[in-house]
């Protein structure tokens, strides 16, 4: 756990703009923490370096600003997520098409899952 925590602290130092308090990163919603943790894990796997990540994220933010993003900090992890999606495709881990297919499958899984039950992805969710 402390190794993970160290890796996370390292990320917070290496990547500019991460919303944080005195102890480290803070998140506005659980999904933001997931997106952060995914990047920390992929970095640990050697998929990218932090300077490479920071540069890709900066491009994503610049692009979003050009499209009118107010950059109030509320959208930081949306850019983070878009960067993840772009990098995993660029690195050949998966493709935008596959991401969309899984996104749609999760949507079907949520729709068929009664409230309060764990949402689980099954093969049938991929054909709808």
């Amino acid at each position, binding site marked *: *756990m402390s190794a*993970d*925590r160290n890796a*996370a602290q390292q990320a917070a130092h290496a990547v500019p703009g991460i919303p944080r*308090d005195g*102890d*480290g*990163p*803070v*998140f*506005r*919603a*659980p*999904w*933001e*923490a*997931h*997106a952060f*943790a*995914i990047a*920390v*894990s*992929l970095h640990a*796997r050697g*998929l990218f370096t932090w300077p490479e990540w920071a540069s890709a994220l900066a491009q994503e933010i610049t692009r979003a600003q050009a499209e009118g993003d107010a950059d109030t900090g509320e959208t930081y992890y*949306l850019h983070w*997520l878009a960067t*993840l*999606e772009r990098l*995993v495709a660029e690195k050949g*881990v*998966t493709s935008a098409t*596959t*991401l*969309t297919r*899984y*996104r749609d*499958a*999760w*949507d079907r899984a*949520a*729709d*068929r*899952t*009664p*409230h*309060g*039950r*764990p*949402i689980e*992805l099954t093969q049938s969710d991929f054909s709808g």
Partner: protein
Amino acid sequence: MTDHHHDHDHSELSETELRVRALESILTEKGYIDPAALDVLIETYETKVGPRNGARVVARAWTDPAFRARLLADATPAIGELGYAGRQGEHIVAVENTPELQNMVVCTLCSCYPWPVLGLPPVWYKSAPYRAKAVKDPRGVLQDFGFELPPTTKIRVWDSTAEIRYFVLPMRPEGTEGWSEEKLSELVTRDSMIGTGLPKQPGEVA
């Protein structure tokens, strides 16, 4: 961000949550990430997710009897008084612990979990066996957490629905007479607001 339809009989994930789940499942299948390790990392940020307005709400209820009465009568506007309002905070019901009654909330499984009030849901809640045990044997679950209730204390389990999200108003710890609201709020843990733990004791905070 999303206009996801808001039916009340099925689970709901926002557009962004769908994208995150898609990434997670693909990366897990391909062996790039280990979901258990991811959960451990995320759990270390338990207190760093969301504004945790719940701690402020509880501390206010401990210090202001009129607020406490309003909170128990109708939690949604009472919480709104503290400046908190939002889709996921709608229809919140506060249930009060007493020496005779311990409340416990289950269902933290989808977007309906009121994280703006409670902070990050506990990872173990996602596990089906624990969830089942919480409903069937809540006393056993509390013991698993090292939390022994007197046999005379009743336990009531609240299963959140899509319309109603519960949170627990724990009992104010003894030895906190004269404490400020702010200092009291430091005693309020996530687990005490879902009923699987007690607030911190006065000696545990500086």
